[in-house]
């Protein structure tokens, strides 16, 4: 008798799991296409901020190659092409801030000059470190047009460390991490320029952050 009652509980729980599992599977089926479309729109949005419209005539999201960056992360390099030539690239770079990893998108033109940098995600202190967002300040815009050599590589630091970039009041670690990430990002470009400019490089399969 007791055995049988145990069974019933199991069956009830199983039926509920099955029912809600089916419901969720159906919802997933219904939304999966729209969610993928939104993800591509988001990607295009952040890319269009670091690669000006005027230098490309291709679809940035689909024209991408997969590479490994200096820290061994798998990254996707989005390429801007115009009339069959690579005019610029954009890829994610990572810095270490006060509260963990700062994820940025860096756009570089064919000469190695910064087209633009934007913060994609960070956990810095609100009111202090978050001035790296364009929403909170224009600090991040000062990198546009700079390259390794302008300023010289030893000046790619915050002022406190003897470099030429301002830190903000009350926050040094955040800008230090960002400056370093951009410098490393530019060095990565210099080291891998040939592969990035190679039009015959195989395209990366579309990856979805799910």
């Amino acid at each position, binding site marked *: 008798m007791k055995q049988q009652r145990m069974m019933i509980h199991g069956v009830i729980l199983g039926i509920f799991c099955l029912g809600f599992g089916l419901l969720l599977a159906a919802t997933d089926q219904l939304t999966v296409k729209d969610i993928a479309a*939104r993800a591509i729109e988001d990607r295009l949005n952040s890319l269009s901020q670091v690669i000006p419209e005027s230098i490309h005539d291709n679809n940035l999201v689909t024209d991408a190659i997969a590479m490994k960056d200096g820290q061994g992360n798998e990254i996707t390099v989005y390429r801007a092409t115009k009339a069959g030539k690579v005019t610029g690239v954009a890829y994610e770079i990572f810095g270490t801030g006060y509260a963990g990893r700062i994820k940025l998108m860096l756009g570089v033109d064919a000469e190695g000059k910064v087209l633009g940098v934007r913060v994609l995600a960070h956990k810095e202190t609100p*009111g202090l470190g978050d001035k790296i967002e364009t929403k909170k300040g224009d600090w991040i815009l000062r990198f546009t047009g700079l390259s390794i050599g302008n300023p010289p590589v030893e000046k790619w630091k915050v002022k406190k460390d003897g470099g030429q970039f301002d830190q903000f009041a009350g926050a040094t670690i955040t800008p230090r991490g960002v400056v370093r990430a951009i410098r490393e990002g530019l060095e990565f470009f210099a080291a891998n320029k040939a592969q990035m400019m190679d039009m015959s490089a195989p395209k990366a399969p579309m990856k979805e952050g799910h």
Partner: protein
Amino acid sequence: MTTEYKTIVKDGLWDNNGVLAMLLGLCPTMAMTTSATNGLGMGLATAAVMAASGLLVSMFRSQITQEVRIPVYILIVAAMVTLVDLCMNAWMHELYKVLGLFIPLIVSNCLPLARLEAFAAKEKVLPSLMDGIFMGIGFTLALTAIGAVREITGAGTLFADASLLLGPAFKFMETHVLPPDSGVLMMILPPGGFLVAGLMVVGKRILDVRAGKAIQMGGAHSAA
């Protein structure tokens, strides 16, 4: 409206308020009340999940046996949260970008689970739905109020980015109360959350004492 429904509404909004009386769901309360808009959004999403899960649990209350009720409740709440998460991501994407990170937090909120156990498991379908809705609205009011105080004192604004959450028509809600950069940073950081929530609980009790009510000691089961 019968007296039963009146009690449900009064309990949810004030007498047995999820945050201010029962002190439940403090994890999302602390995490999401850095601004009034965030508090409002989190509250509304929670209210939707609570209404749907209250309805479902009440519908199946005679099938769910005592022994497996807790896993089934968790299953139902988690399924509703995932449903809200997927649908918002697909069809309300701007809102999802603001709230997306925090939707999964609803599963860890003990308020829905407490109401299912204390109310929906024993009551008929319609009262359970009402309880979910009004407990959810009470939660929303508490979160919005805490968020408003923290935002004004911490950042000097009120309902910043409300148009992102509610649509462009609500741009008028976004106000600057204090000059920019005059806020006290601590109010936005976690200590501010505990301070403001604590002061609000005290404030509610003072009002209740003034009104001559006996203080309801918090507890998920006191309303049932």
